[in-house]
C-alpha cells in the first residue's frame, strides 16, 4: 500500500508529497492555516496559506507574514497535490482543508460548528475518505440550544440590567466569540461598549464586510455614567481587572460551551453563564462525520479517547491523533 497522503508528525499534520503542514505548532516552510485562533495560526512559518477572509486577522495577530489567500472552494496545486479550503462555520474566515491526490481525499476540519450563526460562512460538509476532526465537546452531555433561544436569554439579562440603570459585562474571546455575541445582541436595548482588544478585531471584520452592530470602544476618559444600561464586551481576562472596575456593580456574564456544566459555571463565579460555543456539540460532530462519508476518522483535540472509542463502536475506523491544538482561546475554558 502506498504511503498515506497525510501523516502526523511532532510539528503538525504533514503532507509529504506536497511538503506542507496544516496548522503546524512548530515553525515550518509552508503552512496551510484553518483559522486565526492562536493554537492553529502560530507565528514563525516561512509561508502561510489561508482563506482571503482569514488573512486580515492573521496579519493583525502575527504581524508581517508571507501569505497567500484562497477563495472558498478554489483549488491550488502544491507539488501535485490538490488543496482547497471549505467553510468550517467556526469563526469568520475559518476553513476545513481538503487535500487530494489521485482519488485519495483527506479533510482536516480545524475547529468547526455545523449550525449557522448568521455571521460566519456556514459549515459545508466535504466528502472524503479520511476525516481529521476536532472533538472539543465530544461527549453526549454537550448539546446546544438553538441560537435564537440563547440570544433571548442574553438580551433578557441585558435588558434587566439596563432597566435598573446598571451595566451588563460579558466576557468573550476577542476573535470569534465576541463578534458572534455582538451579532446576537439587540442594539435597541442600549449602547454596546467594547474593550480595545475586541474592538481591534471588530474593525478588521467590519472592514471586510461582516455585519456587526455599532459599538464604542471604552477609553480612559469615557464618561461611564452617561452610558448606563450599556452592555460591555471584554476578554475574559479583563473581567476581574482594574479596567472593569469603572463599571461599578455590573452584572457579569460569560459565554462558552463549558457553561453547560454546572461545576464550570460555578468555578467562573460570574453572575450568569450562557451556553454559546463555536464548536460542534455531540450531535453536530456525529452529523458532520456522517456527512463526509469517510470511514477513517482521526479525532484531534478534545475528549479524543472517549470519542474514538464510540466511533469505533458504531462502525468507523477511528484513531486518536495527538496534536497541540486546544489549550488556548475559544476551545479552552481553562485559559479564560
Amino acid at each position, binding site marked *: 500500500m502506498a504511503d498515506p497522503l497525510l501523516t502526523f508528525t511532532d510539528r503538525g499534520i504533514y503532507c509529504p508529497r506536497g511538503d506542507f503542514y496544516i496548522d503546524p505548532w512548530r515553525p515550518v516552510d509552508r503552512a496551510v492555516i484553518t483559522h486565526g485562533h492562536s493554537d492553529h495560526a502560530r507565528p514563525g512559518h516561512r509561508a502561510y496559506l489561508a482563506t482571503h477572509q482569514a488573512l486580515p486577522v492573521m496579519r493583525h495577530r502575527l504581524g508581517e507574514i508571507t501569505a497567500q489567500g484562497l477563495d472558498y472552494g478554489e483549488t491550488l496545486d502544491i507539488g501535485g497535490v490538490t488543496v482547497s479550503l471549505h467553510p468550517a462555520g467556526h469563526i469568520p474566515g475559518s476553513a476545513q482543508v481538503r487535500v487530494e491526490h489521485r482519488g485519495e481525499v483527506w479533510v482536516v476540519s480545524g475547529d468547526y460548528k455545523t449550525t449557522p450563526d448568521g455571521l460566519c460562512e456556514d459549515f459545508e460538509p466535504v466528502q472524503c475518505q479520511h476525516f481529521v476532526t476536532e472533538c472539543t465537546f465530544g461527549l453526549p*452531555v454537550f448539546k446546544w440550544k438553538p441560537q435564537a433561544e440563547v440570544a433571548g436569554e442574553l438580551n433578557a439579562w441585558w435588558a434587566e440590567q439596563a432597566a435598573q440603570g446598571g451595566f451588563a459585562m460579558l466576557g468573550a474571546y476577542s476573535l470569534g466569540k465576541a463578534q458572534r455575541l455582538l451579532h446576537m445582541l439587540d442594539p435597541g436595548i442600549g449602547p454596546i461598549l467594547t474593550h480595545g482588544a475586541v474592538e481591534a478585531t471588530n474593525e478588521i471584520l467590519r472592514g471586510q464586510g461582516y455585519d456587526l452592530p455599532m459599538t464604542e470602544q471604552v477609553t480612559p476618559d469615557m464618561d461611564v455614567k452617561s452610558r448606563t444600561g450599556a452592555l460591555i464586551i471584554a476578554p475574559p481576562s479583563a473581567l476581574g481587572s482594574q479596567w472593569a472596575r469603572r463599571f461599578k456593580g455590573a452584572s457579569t456574564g460569560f459565554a462558552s460551551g463549558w457553561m453547560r456544566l454546572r*461545576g464550570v459555571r460555578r468555578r467562573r463565579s460570574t453572575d450568569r453563564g450562557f451556553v454559546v460555543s463555536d464548536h460542534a456539540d455531540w450531535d453536530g460532530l456525529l452529523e458532520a462525520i456522517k456527512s463526509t462519508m469517510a470511514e477513517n476518522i482521526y479525532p484531534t483535540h478534545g*475528549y479524543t479517547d472517549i470519542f474514538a472509542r464510540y466511533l469505533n463502536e458504531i462502525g468507523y475506523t477511528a484513531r486518536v491523533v495527538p496534536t497541540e491544538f486546544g489549550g488556548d482561546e475559544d476551545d479552552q475554558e481553562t485559559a479564560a
Partner: protein
Amino acid sequence: MKDFAALFTQIDQTTKTSVKTEALAAFFRKANDEDKLWCIALFSGRRPKRAVTTTQLREWAAERAEVPLWLLEESYPIVGDLAETIALLLPEGGETSNESLSFWVKELIALSQVDLDARKPRILAAWDRLDATERFLFNKLITGGFRVGVSQKLMTRALALATGQDEAVLALKLMGGWTPQTTSYHALIEADSPDADASRPYPFYLAHPLESAPDELAAPQDWQAEWKWDGIRGQLILRDGAQYLWSRGEELITDRFPEFARTVDFLPPGTVLDGEIVTWDGAAPMGFSTLQPRIGRKTVPKKLLKEAPVILLAYDLLEVGGEDLRDRPLHERRARLDTLLQDIPPEAAVRPSPVIRFEDWQSLADTRDTARAARAEGLMLKRLSSPYQIGRKKGDWWKWKLDPLTVDAVMIYAQQGHGRRAGLFTDFTFAVWKGNELVPFTKAYSGLTDAEFGQITTWVRKNTLERFGPVRRVSPEHVFEIAFEGIQASPRHKSGIALRFPRMARWRHDKPPQEANTLKDLQDMLALYG
C-alpha cells in the same frame, strides 16, 4: 416543581449569601405549607427514602438517551455529578408539568413502595414531563447529597426573615429526628417552642492571625497564652437542666456529640463555656482527621463513639449562675473557669485548656516550636484585660500558628479535576528522590491560582508520557514546594509516610528536578515531628 427550580436557579447563579437568603425567604413567603416543609427538610439534610438505585438510574438514562452505558459512565466524572450527567444526557421530553415540589417528592416515596417493575416507567414518565433544571433536581432527590450551596444555617436565616421568628429559636425547632411525614409546617415552625430562650448562644469572639513575632504586642505580662487546638470551636450551654452545643458557624450540633449529655450532672445550670471540641485519647487530642468523620454525622454509631470520643477543651467562661460575664476581663473569667472546672471528673468530657506560662516572647516562641508535639497548631495570645467581644474585632485575640513544614517535590502524575474543576488538571502526585528513583509520597490538589492551573494543564497535555485511565504520567520536570501541617509513618504508602493537609505552596520554576528533596529528608522530618 417550577417554583422550586426557579429558586434553585437563583441560588445557583449567585455567590452572594444575601441574594441566596432573600431568594429562599421569598420562596418561604410564597410556597404552600407542604412545599415549605419539604424545602426545609431538603436543606437540612433530610430526603425521601431511595426509590431506585443509582445503577438502575444509569441504565435507564443511557437507554433513554440512546447511548451505551459506558459512555454515560465516562461522562459522569467529567460532569462531576450523576444527577446532572443524567439531566444533561436525556433528550427533551416535550411535555410539561405544573406539579409542585411535594408532588414529586411524594411520587418518589410512592415509588419506593411499589414493585420494582413498576418503577422504571414512572421514572421515565417523570423525566419526560420535567425540564432540564427540574430533572436535575428530581435526580438529586433520588441520588441524595442535596448540596447546592445552601447550608442549614442560611436556610434558617431565610426562614427567620420570612416568618419574623428569631433565628436561634428556629434552629432549635429544626433540631431532632422529624421528617415531613411525621410533622406539619405548623407543628414544626409556627407552634411555640418553650426551650428556645434557654438554648440561645452568645456570638463568638474570633481571633486574628498574627503575621509576625509578637514583640509589638508589648509587655508579655499583659497577655495569656494557650495552645491553639485543631478541632471545632464550640459553645456549650447548660440552662434549665438541658445542654446545647453550638458550633462557630452558629449551628446547633448537640445531637452529634452525645458525650456532653452528662455535663448537666457535673456543672450548675446557667453555665456557658467557650472552647474547642477535639477527639481525645485520654491524654491529648487525637488529631483532626479523627474528628472529621464525626462532623458530618447527625447520628453517631457506637463504634465511632468509641474510636473517636470527643471532649471540650474549655478556655473561656461566658456565663455563670445565669450571669453574663462577657464584660469582665479575661483574667477574671479565666480564674472563675478554673475554679468551676477544678474538680470535674473525666466523664464530664470537659477540661480546661491549659494556660501556658512564659517570661518573655523568646521563651514563648520556643514553646510554640514544640506545638506539634503537644498536638496543637500553634499558640493563642489573649489580652488579660480584654472583655469577650463579638466577631472578628482586632487587637485582643491573636492566633500565632506554626509555619507549615515544606518539601520540594517533583510532579510525576496528573489527573483532571471534576465538578468545579472539570477540564483542568488539578490533582497531582509528587515524588522525592531515593537515589536515582523518584518515589511518590503525596497527592495535592490545591494552592495554585486558576492561571497556574491553566498553565500546568496546557503543559500536561503536551508532556504526557503514559496514560493509565484518567491518570497521566508526565515527564518529571516541574518542582513544587509542598506545604503540610504534619507528618506520620504510614506502612500503607510506598514512601512509608503520610502528610497532613498537603498543598502546593509554590511552583518552583527556579528549581531543576534534580534539586528536589530526598526520601531521606522526609524520614528526618518524620523522626523530628512524627
